[in-house]
C-alpha cells in the first residue's frame, strides 16, 4: 500500500554523528511536511553534508532516530532508499554509458520499471535529446548535473536531498531547476537542500535552517 503524499513526513530526533572522536552532528531535531522545502545554511564543516548523507542513509544513524513516511531507518533503510533521491557533488554517472543507459541503470537499481519512451522523455526534459546516444564522458559539468537531477523525473521521490544543486549550472539551468523543484513541491514532495547562495533559492518558497557546529540554531548572525 502506497502512503498518500499528504501524510508523507520526515522526522529526525536528537541525531548525532561522529567520525572517530570528532563530533560532527550534535543533536539535530528536524521535521518536514509534504510540499515543504528546507534550506540548510552554514559554514564549511558545520555538518550540512554529513546531515544529508545520514538522511540519504549513506551513513549509519549512530545515535538518535530518523523516520521517513513512518519507516524507521534502522529497520527499513532499503525501502527508504527507494523513496528518496540524493544528488550531491558526485553525479554517479558512468562515462562509457549514454544518458539513456545511465537512466536505465538508475531505474533498474531503484527497482523502477521504465519504458524506453519514458527514458527518452526524461532525457528530452533535461534538454539532452540531441546527445541521447553519446557517452556521458564528453559532457560538460552542467550537462551531467542536469542528467543527475533528471533522475527525479523518472519517478517522483518522496524526499529529495540536494547538496549544492546550483553549482555547475548556468543561468538557464538555474531557472530550469527552480521550475522543476517548484512543480515537485506543488506535487507534495519534500525537499531539503544545502546551499551557499540564498539568492538562487529565492524563487522557491522555503524555510531557512541554520546549522552551526553540528547544531541547528536560530540565526547565523553572531557567527564568530
Amino acid at each position: 500500500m502506497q502512503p498518500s503524499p499528504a501524510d508523507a513526513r520526515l522526522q529526525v530526533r536528537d541525531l548525532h554523528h561522529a567520525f572517530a572522536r570528532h563530533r560532527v552532528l550534535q543533536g539535530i531535531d528536524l521535521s518536514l511536511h509534504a510540499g515543504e522545502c528546507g534550506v540548510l545554511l552554514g559554514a564549511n564543516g558545520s555538518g550540512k553534508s554529513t546531515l544529508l548523507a545520514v538522511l540519504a542513509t549513506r551513513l549509519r544513524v549512530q545515535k538518535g532516530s530518523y523516520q521517513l513516511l513512518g519507516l524507521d531507518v534502522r529497520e527499513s533503510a532499503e525501502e527508504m532508499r527507494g523513496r528518496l533521491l540524493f544528488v550531491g557533488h558526485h553525479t554517479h554517472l558512468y562515462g562509457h554509458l549514454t544518458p539513456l543507459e545511465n537512466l536505465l541503470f538508475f531505474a533498474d537499481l531503484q527497482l523502477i520499471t521504465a519504458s524506453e519512451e519514458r527514458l527518452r522523455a526524461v532525457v528530452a526534459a533535461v534538454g539532452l535529446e540531441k546527445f541521447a546516444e553519446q557517452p556521458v564522458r564528453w559532457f560538460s559539468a552542467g550537462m551531467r548535473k542536469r542528467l543527475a537531477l533528471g533522475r527525479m523525473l523518472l519517478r517522483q521521490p518522496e524526499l529529495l536531498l540536494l547538496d549544492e544543486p546550483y553549482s555547475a549550472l548556468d543561468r538557464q539551468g538555474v531557472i530550469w531547476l527552480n521550475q522543476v523543484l517548484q512543480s515537485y513541491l506543488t506535487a507534495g514532495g519534500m525537499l531539503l537542500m544545502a546551499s551557499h547562495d540564498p539568492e538562487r533559492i529565492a524563487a522557491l518558497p522555503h524555510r531557512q535552517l541554520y546549522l552551526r557546529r553540528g547544531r541547528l540554531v536560530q540565526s547565523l548572525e553572531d557567527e564568530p
Partner: protein
Amino acid sequence: MIKWFSKWHGVVFVATLLTLLTGLWLVLSAPADYQQGDAVRILYIHVPAAKMSLLSYLFLTVASGMYLWRRQEPWDILAEASVSVGAAFTALTLASGSIWGKPMWGAWWAWDARLTSMLVLLILFMGLMALRNALEDPHKAARATAVLAIIGAVDLPIIHYSVVWWRTLHQPPSFAGPAKQTITGDLLPPLLVMSVAFILLGAWLLMVKSREVAARRAWETLETERLEQSHG
C-alpha cells in the same frame, strides 16, 4: 577495558614469568627421549605455541564479529592486538618446528600438512596487518580487517583439510610432523605447565599490545584535532 588492563598487566606478567620459569625447569630436568634425544625438549615450546596461534585466531574472530555487530572501538582494538600476538606465536611455532625438523628430518622444512597450514596462517596474519596499514580511514580499516578475519576463520579449516588431503592422497607422508608425537607419562607435567605459561603469556601480550594500540589511536586523534584547530 584498557584501564583494567593497565591495572592488572603487571600481575599477569609476574604470573607468566613464574610459570614459564617453572615450566622451563621441568622441561630441562625431564629425561631425554630415547628416540629423539634432547630435540624433544623443543616440542614443549612448539606444541603450546601452535595451540596459542589457533587460540589467538579464535579470539580475533570473536572480537571481529563483535566489532561488526556492535561497532564499538574496544573490540577493534582487541582485534588489532590479537593479530600481532597471533603472528608472534605462529612465527614461534614455525621457527621451533623448523629447529626440531633439522635433526629429525635432516631438513629445516618439510611440506608437512600442519606446518603448511601454519605457514598459511602466518601469511594471513601478515595480510591482516598489511590491510590495516594500507587503509587510510580507520573505520574502513576496522571493517575491512574484521571481515577478512571472519573469512579467514571460515577458510582456515578448508585450507587445513585440503592440505591434509593433498599430502595424504597424493603422496603418503614419509615422516610424522612435530605436532603428531604423542607425549605421555613423565613428559606430561612439563607440557601442562608450559601450556599454562603460554596462555598467561598470550594474555599478557594481548593486554600490553591493546594498551599500546589504544594509546597510539588516542594520540592520533589529538594530533588531528590539533591540526584542525590550527587551520581554523
